[in-house]
């Protein structure tokens, strides 16, 4: 080759290599910075794990000692609370900086600036709901000299101290892949995170399901299928009964479809779809749910109260939780889990009390059909005959480079944001958008020294409504479903559609604290909640919500709690992973009875006999090796499909399955009426089916489907561990950063329920014994570090999936931590 030719080739190679190195290609970031072995992504593999360090950070009043134990949990020893929050901000940012920014941007609706325009649908939802605007109002309303504001400021100082000190090799991998740099943290972002939790937990709208069913089977039937009160009463607030009560009634027969309701329903469904974040709907009731329970000293072996916390959320890597211990002598000594971005412990314990939460599933949002002056470009809306101006909020969406790629205008009535869906303008009122100060409550709760002090600290808590369970060393236990419960006009129900043109449709106020679901030291000696209806409707006329999750988990928990007066922390731990199912206990006997009746009537073919025998062998436990658990789930799918044929949208032959099915407690209610017209399949004109015929046919169909999908029932493919797995996805859905296909014990409606997609589950399990010295155990599915190359990224998943808990260190002083359990020491000094 000539020298000239060689030079030309070299020039081409150089230009190509430089373009990859400097500019990247498509979604691939510049490779020079990404693959540089010293400061690029590779550096994360060689990054020292929790090095011993002395660091000067601004704002610190006195030195702070942080000791990381062998589980990478920081024990923060400070002399002032603000210094403790500052140190917490520093260490959480060091471990979870990208997660913190992603979460705050998700609320702000600025994800597009970080991860590109593909995040526009999610941002659009956040902006349309006005999440950041509401969070900003809450932040602005804080007392700037109050404990919460000072905590938020100090925490932000700590986060920014880490950002300022961070070297190129410390930048989290996600920023490198996105070719972005971390943004500075502002105190208001804590409010953003709490607002995000309201969207996750406090956005329940049964009225859509009810309306959809009304469109298909009429109002009376819809009221029974989406009932205000659960047909099985096992409430959170003890009702004096020692067993669940079955308030079963005959379901009204389906009437002709209501086409008007169908039209409205479809419009609203579209709006609700638009409101779903990341296009992800929460799974249905049997697959989700948090639990908490506490036993009084009278029911524990040690004669000390024991508390169990088991909140369920989306399973992600890194985890939504971060474990920490804050110690400020004479003022604060608290441990447990915090959300990255929140200064303080959200679920945990101090030297005197322990507390935890489950979601209340209350109905806290309503939609209003508005009348506007111009359907295409409205500027006014009608209220009591007067045209009122619509507020406008201009939203600019920016790409990573900062250029505006889209501008939207959000319209607001006095109720909240308004959107046009299929020609109708609908506005939303939602308690999460109301003024509130949750941070004050969390800070107060950490300082409480008794159940009463904790309840007092939490009484101004607004959203999302939580079943807060607390126990103290004095042997007291209490639970209260605290938050803003709207008081509606008329019947008080919120599962209906409101006329926006009348102020009479507006909320009348909020339920006073004394009418919230509550119990303290009940004679039964225990308290429990599992997202079920909180109060027996015979004891109150207040409306808290509708279409409640079937109380299977509560039934199982309460059954165990009633049966034992010698609980130990380990028994409580085992309960958290109990593979038994009240749902299976309820349905299996009916299925077997139906199959045997059909066989006795001469309609028992080989398929039915095999099915009956197979199901009868089941111990009704969702253990990993169970084959019948998979069969039972197939049967229940078939039962739903065949029973609720009336709920298939006319003309929807492609899908052929109901768009919505009632809660399983309603199905059980129907099972008590074997001759109901609901059992008749509308598709078979010459036969009137009965319950037993439908159930028997469901068993046959399930067996056929199972054999087709998994092979012979003896095959390992039938085993529950092959059918149900946990999928713990990375926040950006990067598979190699995720842990997928983890076999788990438990199934729909067990105490640790699991969803079919495996992305939801127990996000933190905790047991605390409140003796003279607090003893606590816990685990979450993930690890403390957000760095996928770290040994602490996913180190707890194995224990979590096996139902094991780590004993949590809770030293009174740094000297109490044994050297053998210390990973590293970090000393923060004044700058």
């Amino acid at each position, binding site marked *: 080759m000539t*020298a000239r030719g*060689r*030079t030309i080739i*070299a*020039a081409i*190679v*150089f230009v*190509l*290599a*430089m373009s*990859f*190195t400097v500019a990247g290609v498509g979604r*691939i970031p510049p*490779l*020079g*910075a990404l*693959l*540089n*072995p*010293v*400061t690029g*992504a*590779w550096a*994360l*593999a*060689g990054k020292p794990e929790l090095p011993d360090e002395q660091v000067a950070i601004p704002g610190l009043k006195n030195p702070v000692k942080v000791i990381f134990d062998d589980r990478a949990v920081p024990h923060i020893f400070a002399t002032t609370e603000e210094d403790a929050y500052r140190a917490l901000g520093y260490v959480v940012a060091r471990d979870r900086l990208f997660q913190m920014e992603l979460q705050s941007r998700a609320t702000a609706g600025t994800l597009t600036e970080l991860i590109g325009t593909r995040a526009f649908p999610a941002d659009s939802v956040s902006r349309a709901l006005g999440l950041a605007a509401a969070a900003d109002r809450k932040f602005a309303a804080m007392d700037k000299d109050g404990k919460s504001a000072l905590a938020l400021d100090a925490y932000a100082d700590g986060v920014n101290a880490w950002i300022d000190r961070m070297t190129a090799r410390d930048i989290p*991998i996600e920023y490198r*892949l996105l070719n972005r740099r971390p943004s500075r943290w502002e105190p208001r972002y804590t409010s953003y995170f709490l607002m995000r939790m309201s969207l996750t937990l406090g956005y329940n709208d049964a009225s859509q399901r009810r309306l959809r069913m009304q469109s298909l089977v009429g109002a009376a039937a819809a009221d029974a299928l989406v009932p205000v009160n659960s047909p099985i009463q096992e409430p959170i607030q003890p009702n004096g009964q020692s067993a669940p009560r079955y308030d079963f009634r005959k379901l009204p027969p389906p009437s002709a479809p209501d086409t008007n309701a169908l039209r409205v329903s479809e419009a609203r469904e579209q709006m609700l779809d638009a409101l779903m974040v990341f296009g992800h709907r929460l799974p249905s009731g049997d697959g989700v749910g948090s639990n908490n329970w506490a036993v009084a000293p009278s029911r524990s072996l040690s004669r000390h109260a024991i508390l169990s916390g088991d909140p369920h959320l989306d399973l992600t890597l890194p985890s939504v939780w971060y474990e920490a211990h804050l110690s400020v002598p004479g003022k604060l000594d608290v441990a447990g889990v915090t959300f990255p971005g929140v200064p303080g412990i959200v679920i945990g314990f101090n030297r005197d009390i322990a507390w935890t939460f489950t979601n209340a599933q209350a109905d806290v949002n309503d939609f209003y059909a508005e009348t506007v002056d111009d359907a295409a470009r409205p500027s006014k809306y009608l209220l009591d005959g007067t045209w009122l101006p619509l507020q406008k909020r201009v939203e600019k969406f920016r790409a990573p480079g900062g250029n505006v790629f889209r501008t939207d205008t959000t319209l607001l009535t006095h109720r909240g944001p308004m959107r046009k869906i299929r020609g109708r303008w609908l506005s939303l009122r939602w308690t999460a958008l109301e003024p509130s100060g949750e941070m004050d409550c969390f800070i107060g709760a950490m300082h409480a020294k008794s159940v009463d002090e904790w309840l007092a600290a939490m009484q101004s808590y607004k959203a999302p409504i939580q079943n807060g369970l607390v126990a103290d060393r004095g042997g007291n236990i209490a639970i209260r479903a605290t938050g803003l419960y709207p008081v509606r006009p008329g019947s008080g129900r919120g599962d209906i559609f409101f006329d926006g043109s009348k102020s009479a449709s507006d909320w009348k106020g909020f339920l006073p604290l004394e009418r919230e679901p509550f119990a303290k030291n009940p004679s039964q000696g225990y308290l429990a909640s599992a997202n079920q209806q909180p109060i027996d409707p015979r004891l109150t006329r207040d409306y808290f919500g509708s279409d409640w999750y079937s109380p299977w988990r509560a039934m199982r928990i309460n059954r165990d709690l009633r049966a034992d007066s010698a609980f130990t922390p380990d028994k409580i731990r085992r309960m958290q992973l109990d593979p038994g199912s009240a749902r299976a206990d309820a349905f299996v006997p009916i299925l077997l009875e139906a199959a045997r009746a059909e066989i006795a009537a001469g309609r028992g073919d080989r398929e039915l006999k095999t099915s009956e025998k197979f199901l009868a062998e089941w111990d009704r436990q969702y253990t990993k090796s169970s084959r019948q658990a998979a069969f039972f789930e197939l049967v229940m799918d078939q039962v739903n499909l065949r029973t609720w044929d009336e709920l298939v949208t006319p003309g929807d032959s492609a899908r052929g399955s109901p768009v919505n099915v009632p809660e399983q407690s309603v199905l059980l209610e129907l099972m008590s009426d074997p001759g109901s017209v609901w059992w008749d399949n509308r598709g078979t004109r010459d036969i009137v089916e009965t319950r037993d015929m439908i159930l028997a046919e469901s068993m046959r169909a399930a067996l056929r489907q199972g054999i087709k999908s998994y092979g012979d029932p003896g095959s390992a493919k039938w085993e529950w561990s092959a059918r149900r797995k946990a999928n713990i996805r990375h926040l950006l859905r*990067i*598979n*190699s*950063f995720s842990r997928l296909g983890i076999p788990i014990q438990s199934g729909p409606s067990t105490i640790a329920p699991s969803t079919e997609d495996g992305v939801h589950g127990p996000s933190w399990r905790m047991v605390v014994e409140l003796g003279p010295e607090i003893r606590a155990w816990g685990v979450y599915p993930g690890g403390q570090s957000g760095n*996928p*190359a770290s040994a602490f990224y996913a180190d707890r998943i194995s224990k979590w999936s096996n139902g094991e808990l780590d004993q949590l260190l809770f030293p009174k002083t740094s000297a109490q931590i044994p050297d053998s359990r210390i990973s590293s020491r970090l000393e923060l000094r004044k700058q």
Partner: protein
Amino acid sequence: MNGKNLFNVLLAAVVTALLTQAVGWLGLLVVAMLWGVLQKDLASSPIQAGLGAALGWLLLLVQNDPSAFYSFARVLSGALGIPAPALVLVTLLIPFALTWSMTILSTRARGWLRK
């Protein structure tokens, strides 16, 4: 490869490692320019510089904990949607390609300047 060539490759590797520590990937360009200007063997010096640069980066990659590097290679390559060996290859190809091509261009530039 004779002893002198091997020495040159190792020298380039050490210089690359030091310069990458100091100024990042731009150090590759500095190495290439140095080689292009200082080396007289026009046929082999670009290859020596390229191999040396790739070797320098390889040493930096495995210097702390080779096992952590290998396991992270699988994780990182998954995030980029390519096999782990390909990612390692790309990581080494960058210093090779940049340094090899820049050395040739530097050599030519030196020649033009002399004229």
